[in-house]
């Protein structure tokens, strides 16, 4: 694997344009959590023309519902959840300025096309490595929808949060390319 690229959020157009599939990235700065229920609520607000509880321009959303923090921990285990369930909402969020998504698993054609159009990137985090990933999250605070429990939107401060570029701004897909390379007939 390539030498990791260290990036700090919010991600600039220049940062995003140079990323290509398979690149290992260490994210620093602030990212926001959001999964099924939070996406539904954000989407409903957008449709009603109301203001969102966070400014998503240039931001990165991490699809995660963390385990509860034990005393002394910033956050409990916090690996990615499967991303396709957010597909219906993602193009709209990118249109509004979202520039990065972190999850695991395949995205729809529409989402990949929207990434190309709005110059956004989809990062993969290692699914099932929640205990390991939690080590790179230094602080977590709920910023919206506390009633959703693990699904609440949290603001995370991360240091060298490890991800891999799955879909870049050029429309490439690591899942397709990776499987092609190792497939045996």
């Amino acid at each position, binding site marked *: 694997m390539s030498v990791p690229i260290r990036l700090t959020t919010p991600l600039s157009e220049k940062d995003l344009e140079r990323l290509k599939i398979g690149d290992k990235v260490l994210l620093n700065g602030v990212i926001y959590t959001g999964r099924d229920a939070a996406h539904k609520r954000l989407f409903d607000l957008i449709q009603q023309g109301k203001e969102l509880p966070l400014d998503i321009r240039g931001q990165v959303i991490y699809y995660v519902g963390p385990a*509860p923090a034990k005393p002394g921990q910033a956050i409990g285990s916090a690996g990615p959840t499967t991303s396709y369930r957010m597909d219906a909402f993602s193009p709209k969020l990118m249109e509004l300025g979202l520039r990065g998504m972190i999850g*695991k698993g395949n995205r729809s054609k529409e989402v990949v096309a929207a990434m190309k159009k709005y110059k956004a990137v989809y990062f993969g985090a290692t699914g099932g490595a929640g*205990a390991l990933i939690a080590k790179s999250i230094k602080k977590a605070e709920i910023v919206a929808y506390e009633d959703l429990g693990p699904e609440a939107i949290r603001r995370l401060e991360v240091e060298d949060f490890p991800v891999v570029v799955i879909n870049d701004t050029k429309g490439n897909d690591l899942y397709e390319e990776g499987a092609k390379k190792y*497939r045996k007939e």
Partner: protein
Amino acid sequence: MREVSINEIIPVVRSLFIEANYDLGRDVLDAFDRAIKSDESPVAKEVLEELKENARISREERVPLCQDCGLAVLFVELGQDVHITGGDLKQALNEGVRQGYKDGYLRKSACDPFARANTGDNTPAIIHYDIVPGEKIKIIVGPKGGGSENMSSVSMLTPAVGIEGVKEHVIKTLQEAGSNPCPPTIVGIGIGGTFERSALLAKKALLREIGTRNPDPKLAKIETDILEAINKLGIGPMGYGGNTTSLDVFLEMEPCHIASLPVAVNINCHSARHKQAVI
């Protein structure tokens, strides 16, 4: 007749769920090691090393392997000469789940299907009972994550498709699941019975240790054939490409109706968590 109080059962269930979520089985760790040696992809090796490191942190720091600590699935083999005292067995099993998920800092993932409101304590548990001879109670817990469960299926195939048709169906299921169920996965296949029975067989199959084969050589051959074919798909760990898409395939089979060929495919992520105790 032996009397067993629910007060003996509750702490056992509590501790089984905590341990299942903190302590990945030796069989899975050994399978990671074998795959690190055999996989051609350097990226696959890196991902597998991360999974090993994750399991070490989980075990040593006593934190959950994965934030998805699963719905609480229990298999209870109840000896027919046991008399449960002190209360309702089902309530006791749920109380054990409640305490385990709270005290173990495990994520509660049970919710209302439409309102999506979390039940708050990971109950109700999914409990499968078997009445067996004897005066003991065996409890097996298998917390089950949602990502891999979502890629699972029950299909009523046409009997004419036979063994080859079943193999193709399972391989296609894994191909379509792709990176979603957190590969490398473990695949449970239930063949036969009725619609619901096949699903239960597939779920039970997932409780086997990696490397164990169905005692029937014909079925064992189907298991290894399917495993080999899945690992040729190239999906690899996390779907980044590689030769380790599944760690094992377990098949359980029972007779079915003359008109039917039920086939259930239950996919488990690499976080293949199960623990058991006998009371």
